């Protein structure tokens, strides 16, 4: 039996897909839909830049998690601290991956704020895009919680005391029982310690990425439904 040419295999696959789903039509619609010329302005790229940075953060985060050990240990012997040190100094290109994750997070916050400023300035939050604005604000909050939770992970003195202050502020919510409950939830004990690191790690690596991916999906669905907003 003659081996079919790869082009024939490709055509057969496309035909097979087309018989089950309007595949080529969907691809054409997605690729060749027209976009207003004003959307070529540079300030309409900020949202895309935020998306690129979030993907970069997810990828570098996965790579860092291969070596990071979320165990605070005891004073003077902290596997978490040692693992970050290992990533920074020994792991192949670890310093670069950690550097990209660190600077990517910083630039991400700047880009989110710039994107938000553009949306506000051009009135792109107005009807029918109110819900998308709200999703965006929640995503901003999530990105800030990402930064807060990620800050503790290296488990050095700076991270420890900055987190202690954050938890103290959150734990001072009235009434006293509610404040104590929040502190207990965040801290997992009487002081900032190994359970705190475990909780922050879980939030940073499992909960927040899932939430941000979900909200990004909702954000993009809204954008796809509404299209690009009119200029001012």
């Amino acid at each position, binding site marked *: 039996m003659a081996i079919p040419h790869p082009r024939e295999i490709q055509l057969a696959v496309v035909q097979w897909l087309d018989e089950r789903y309007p595949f080529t039509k969907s691809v054409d619609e997605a690729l060749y839909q027209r976009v207003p010329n004003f959307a070529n302005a540079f300030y309409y790229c900020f949202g895309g830049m935020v998306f690129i940075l979030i993907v970069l953060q997810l990828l570098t985060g996965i790579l860092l998690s291969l070596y990071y050990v979320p165990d*605070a240990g005891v004073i003077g012997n902290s596997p978490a601290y040692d693992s970050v040190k290992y990533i920074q100094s020994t792991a192949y290109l670890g310093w670069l991956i950690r*550097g990209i994750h660190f600077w990517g997070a910083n*630039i991400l916050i700047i880009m989110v704020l710039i994107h938000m400023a553009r949306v506000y*300035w051009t009135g792109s939050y107005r*009807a029918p895009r109110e819900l998308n604005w709200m999703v965006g604000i929640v995503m901003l909050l999530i990105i800030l919680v990402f930064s807060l939770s990620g800050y503790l992970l290296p488990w050095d003195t700076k991270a420890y005391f900055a987190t202690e202050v954050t938890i103290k502020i959150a734990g001072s919510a009235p009434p006293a029982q509610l404040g104590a409950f929040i502190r207990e939830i965040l801290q997992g004990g009487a002081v900032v310690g190994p359970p705190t690191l475990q909780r922050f790690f879980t939030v940073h690596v499992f909960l927040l990425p899932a939430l941000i991916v979900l909200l990004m999906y909702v954000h993009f669905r809204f954008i796809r439904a509404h299209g690009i907003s009119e200029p001012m």
Partner: protein
Amino acid sequence: MDETTRKDGPGAATAATVIPIIEVDSHGGHVLEPEWKRLPIGPDHILYPVVVGLALFPILMGAAGHHLADDMPDEDTHPFFPDHFWPYPIIAVVMLVTVGLLAFFVQKDLQLEVPADPRAVTVPRPDWYFLFLFQFLKLGPELIMSLVIPPVVFVVFLLWPFIDAIGGPKVARRMGWKTWPVPGRNFITGAGYVIFLAIIALLTLWALAGPQFCLPWIINSPVCGA
């Protein structure tokens, strides 16, 4: 029409026998780039899997609603691929190179301090994006500055589209304006936003000035940087 009474008119011999029907709704009412103007990357092209990969993203995002471009003349619009898409791979590479260079040249901020020790004495200082909040907390009673004002500001931001839509026209009527423009053309919401950003910038700069930079204040005076 009855076949017996039908007669071909002048020019029938050269006229198209089948009148092409443009199916406006075949693409959900959207105007697409005409086929003859598209890149010649069809289902038999070696690069077709690549364009399918690009198309998967919008496909997964669901059906497109009625977009502004659908009502615009052709000369005011362009196709998503490749005209609108091409800057993004370049932007992605530029951003990757930028963070890579920062990671390479600005190592200072990445260096670890000594391992966490609760017995250590240190003045905590948050990252730059929380410095304004850190400084703001010092300007009044802690409870109000930390747990009242920031959540209120957050809720105002969250509900801003509704505040703008309901309150804006009322203010416009009182001012004698015909419409309530977007913040970029609106003195009130535009200036309000600039003032808000200026306050955040000033608080950040104040914090960055360090603990030796102190200013008199109505509460907790003097208030120093972080």
